[in-house]
């Protein structure tokens, strides 16, 4: 099977956000593989182990992303590809999709996996957008995947309920939490990863015109939420506290 994963490098979920000159500061920030993409990588590796074939992990970003791509290789992926967009000023989900679509244009694939959202912009757009551009079916937020021949059977999380969905390969799927437990890279895995192929493609080497990748959206402003004032910690007998709380919720906050 030709298995591809689309991956994004994101801020560690523990990071606080600092805004400098209208931009999110990356200074001192720890980066990780987007947690949802980690499920996608793990699932891809398991698919390959069960069905044979090869896992290629593709990401877009600057050279720094090579670190997360190496991590994916250390987990067990076979190949990694970085589409380098360092010289591209302006990009959004439309841009990302156009670059990925250009990359996949001459590739043969059975399945493309990705996370259902990234934990930074959380738009969840790129998976479905890419599937549409490639003319293949897609299933989002999957929590289980079985492939038999060319038929994929999936469970997907739909706002707490579960749907069982069937589709034919080639297919794009996006991972939801609960799909699997991503492995940690092993020491031999890390050693092997150093020798695995990591291809660095400059975005303008792809067959895509500048006006085809120009962002369709524009960010005007970024800001932090107003700091919340410390609230009221109630005191006294527990029974009285509970009574006071209910009164406050009804009369002061008026939410019940």
């Amino acid at each position, binding site marked *: 099977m030709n298995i591809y994963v689309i991956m994004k490098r994101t801020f560690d*979920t*523990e990071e*606080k*956000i600092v805004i400098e000159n209208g931009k*999110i500061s990356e200074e001192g920030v720890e980066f990780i593989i987007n947690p949802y993409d980690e499920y996608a990588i793990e699932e891809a590796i398991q698919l390959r182990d069960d069905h044979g074939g090869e896992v290629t992990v593709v990401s877009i970003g600057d050279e720094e992303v090579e670190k997360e791509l190496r991590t994916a290789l250390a987990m067990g992926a076979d190949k990694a590809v970085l589409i380098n967009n360092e010289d591209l000023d302006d990009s*959004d989900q*439309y841009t990302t*999709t156009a670059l990925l679509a250009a990359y996949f244009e001459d590739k043969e694939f059975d399945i493309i996996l990705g996370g259902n959202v990234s*934990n*930074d912009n*959380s*738009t969840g*757009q*790129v*998976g*479905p957008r*890419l*599937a*549409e*551009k490639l003319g293949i*079916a*897609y*299933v989002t*937020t999957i929590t289980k995947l079985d492939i038999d021949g060319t038929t994929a059977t999936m469970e997907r999380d*739909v*706002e*707490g*309920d*579960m*749907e*069982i*969905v*069937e*589709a*034919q390969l080639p297919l794009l799927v996006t991972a*939801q*939490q*609960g799909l699997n437990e991503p492995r940690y890279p092993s020491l031999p895995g890390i050693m092997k990863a150093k020798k695995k192929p990591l291809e660095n493609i400059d975005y303008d080497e792809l067959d895509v015109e500048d006006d085809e990748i120009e*962002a*369709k*959206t524009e960010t*005007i*402003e*970024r*800001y932090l*939420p107003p700091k*919340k004032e*410390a*609230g009221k*910690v*109630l005191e006294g007998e*527990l029974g009285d*506290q*509970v009574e006071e709380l*209910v009164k*406050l*919720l*009804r009369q002061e*906050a008026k939410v*019940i």
Partner: protein
Amino acid sequence: MAKKVLVFAEARDNELRNVSFEAIGAGKEIAAGGEVIAVVVGENVGSLTDPLFHYGADRVIKVEDEKLKNYTSDGYGQAFIQIVDSVDPDAILMPHTSIGKDLAPRLASKLDAGLVSDAIGIELEGEDVVFTRPIYSGKAFEKKKIKEGIILATIRPNNIAPLELDESRSGEVFEESIKIKDLRTIVKEVVRKSTSGVDLSEAKVIVAGGRGVKSEEGFEPLQELADLLGAAVGASRGACDADYCDYSLQIGQTGKVVTPDLYIACGISGAIQHLAGMSNSKVIVAINKDPEASIFSVADYGIVGDLFEVVPLLTQEFKKVLQTS
């Protein structure tokens, strides 16, 4: 400039979701005196058209087909693109729900258009429609606009006020017949797992448990309180990782981001990744044994105490006052 706005009205269990009315409200604002056209799609949606007018739709298009009984991106995608072609709108709004998240990017890709996902606010600045949306799960916000062409956005439930219900409003319902070709994805079965039927993302009140809940059974007092308040039950990552509950309940940077009117956090310490998912709730109550727990820093009201004592007392007290009122 007046605009023609197409709004996707979503139904669940043959009932329109609140966020559909919120999206019509948002559509009215963007339309700036223009027309808001609501589209409702399904196997049998005849009874759903009236409320759309009551909440402000100027025109309603209904599409009925047995292939649209269950949502699939293929089926709804084909239906919707045909409607977009025939209506030729200036803007399209969808709820930021499971369906909207799945369908809107496909539509945007098909139309070669920009899409603002998960909008929580809308402002008109001259000719521009400016959307506010959370980033980093609500640790920060951004204002965004579509540079040119058709405006596409998904609207987060519970954030944009719908118009006042006005049952005297009515209008014309148009039936579109749509050709749906073979579907590439087939829904074999839908398994209902949500316990109370109140969806986390749309819930006005959420009762959430963390590690302090200690076990699967530990969620029972929380569920009782939730049932009484018509609330949804949620959880922190700690509780999910410890297998006390299903991951579908998880609130946080991984998991769901929620903004209910009232969030009651029980035995949740308040790790930054959880706070990201809930700290923009309107009112937060924290119940925790540890007075130093960081959840208290975002709470409006706090009770330092054992949730297994406090929560049942709270349920009792609410029962008392809700019965007498």
